């Protein structure tokens, strides 16, 4: 199934059936999650999202391998942050009563579990409180190493409202790309609200 998806994805990308679209500066509403950007971003087509949930989206400036902001809105109790593919290790599920340390762990563990045999190493740090509008949430930083790829740094914002988890992850390749878009990405994450 994975191989079939890969071939289909590759075929579609090569044939030019899928295209990036642009999102203009301003406020956008994704499944109730309102985010505001000061500059235009490219919205990655769904097929490039790999294991992203149906309601998740990715923005990028210089291409997904170099930088991305991943929006994962409204994850309900018992659901996973990414899609579970057949045969893959089971991803951890969100529980509505999770505390900040557990939200940090579920993000870290979900990314690790996407790579079935340890092809990625993720470390999180600097867990800190942050208010998303009226909702108390957290921010934390991330370091990620991918086999056959660059090092990544990241910032994640997350909060729970109405029993649902909202996550925004910014990842940028090191060196250069993480810092290039960090300020804008952090402003988008910090300014997110319902």
């Amino acid at each position, binding site marked *: 199934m994975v*191989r079939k998806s890969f*071939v289909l994805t590759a075929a579609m990308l090569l044939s030019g059936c899928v295209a990036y679209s642009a999102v203009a500066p301003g406020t956008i509403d994704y499944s109730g999650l309102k985010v505001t950007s000061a500059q235009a971003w490219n919205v990655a087509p769904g097929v490039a999202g790999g294991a992203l949930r149906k309601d998740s989206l990715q923005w990028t400036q210089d291409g997904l391998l170099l930088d991305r902001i991943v929006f994962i809105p409204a994850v309900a109790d018992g659901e996973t942050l990414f899609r579970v593919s057949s045969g893959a290790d089971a991803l951890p599920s969100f529980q509505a009563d999770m505390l900040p340390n557990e939200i940090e762990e579920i993000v870290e563990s979900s990314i690790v579990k996407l790579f079935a045999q340890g092809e990625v*190493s993720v470390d999180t740090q600097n867990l800190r409180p942050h208010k998303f509008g009226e909702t108390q949430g957290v921010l934390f930083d991330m370091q990620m*190493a991918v*086999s*056959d790829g660059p090092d990544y740094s990241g910032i994640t914002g997350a909060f729970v409202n109405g029993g649902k988890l909202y996550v925004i992850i910014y990842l940028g390749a090191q060196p250069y790309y993480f810092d290039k878009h960090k300020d804008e990405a952090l402003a988008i994450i910090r300014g997110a609200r319902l």
Partner: protein
Amino acid sequence: MRCIAIATLLLLSLSLKAGDADLTPKIPPGYKPDGANDEKGMWLELEEYERAIQRSPLLVKDPYINAYVRDVTCRVTGEYCADLRIYVIRNPYFNASMTANGIVQVWTGLLLRVSSEDELAAVLGHELAHYTQLHTMDRLRRTTKAATSGSIFDMGLLVLTGVSVPVGQLTALASLMAYSRGDESEADLLGAKFMADAGYDPHAAADLWKKIVDEDANAVAKGTEPGLFSKTHPSSADRIVELNRFVDENFPEATADPANKQSHLDMLNAYYLMLMEDQIDTNRFGRTEVLLDRHRQMGVQEELVHFFHGEMYRQRDEAGDMEFAIKAYTLAAQGDNPVPDAYRNLGYIYLKQDNLPQAQYNFRQYLELEPDADDRAMIEFYLNED
């Protein structure tokens, strides 16, 4: 009944083969392919694969770990050591490999699972045998025939990035293919011989296989998948019997040097946090529990073992697990070498149980032991609640 008969016949044929096995290395130290043949072409591809390994952010650069692995590798491989390049890879799963041109990869998950230098030497001796008997080249040839589009490794990157980066596809695929049963049997026996020649206790090879079987059995009981090494090196009880018989017949006097256990224990104690945090991230609780029990028996610093028991129970969160986690964290926090994070995680558990005074007591203990904690702002947020 038919299955038993087939298994018996298979066992008899394997015993016969083991008895007839020619345990002479097929290539000498310093071996390089000559002439224009497929072997030379494959070595060229492997050179490209090696450059990718050297660039990998998962390459462990710590000098202590690298020196430890290099010393054991060179001791067991003897004169072949000069032909090998050794890379320690940060990966929590059990695996080691040696390519036809001498690239040795040792995953950190292997270091977490062996109990002594002897057991590490057992894996490296086994891999050296695949190398000297040209099994690795045979496997690469089989992979070439079987290769189709796409790469298993690239799939992982595709999942997150949506973009495939083809690096070392053939070699990556080969590393996921199993050796034949005959090759495995030959590598078991020749590997044990390499160990004994180097002064290691060859009994450790069967001991290690038993540990792998036990860990797999525990993981299957929890419904998790087998590890990569088990997929590519099928383990079975008859293999342990064959190894034990071979070692008892050929090296009856071999015994383990206690110093080989101590040197491995010293390395584990120095890097336990990093190694176990990666293991915890796999969410494979059955395997983690087996490892922690083993580490406790080995004498790994007990507060660290208690702490990771707490991590496992807290993250598994089955009935009664939170109480087990509280007990384990308490032992980790109150020992002679308290683990600061144990206080923090106790604080979070009590917070979840709506016991704010206990939560704040533990959070304060945490910050006292770890005043520069990177999550200080989060902890202070809860200390300011009332």
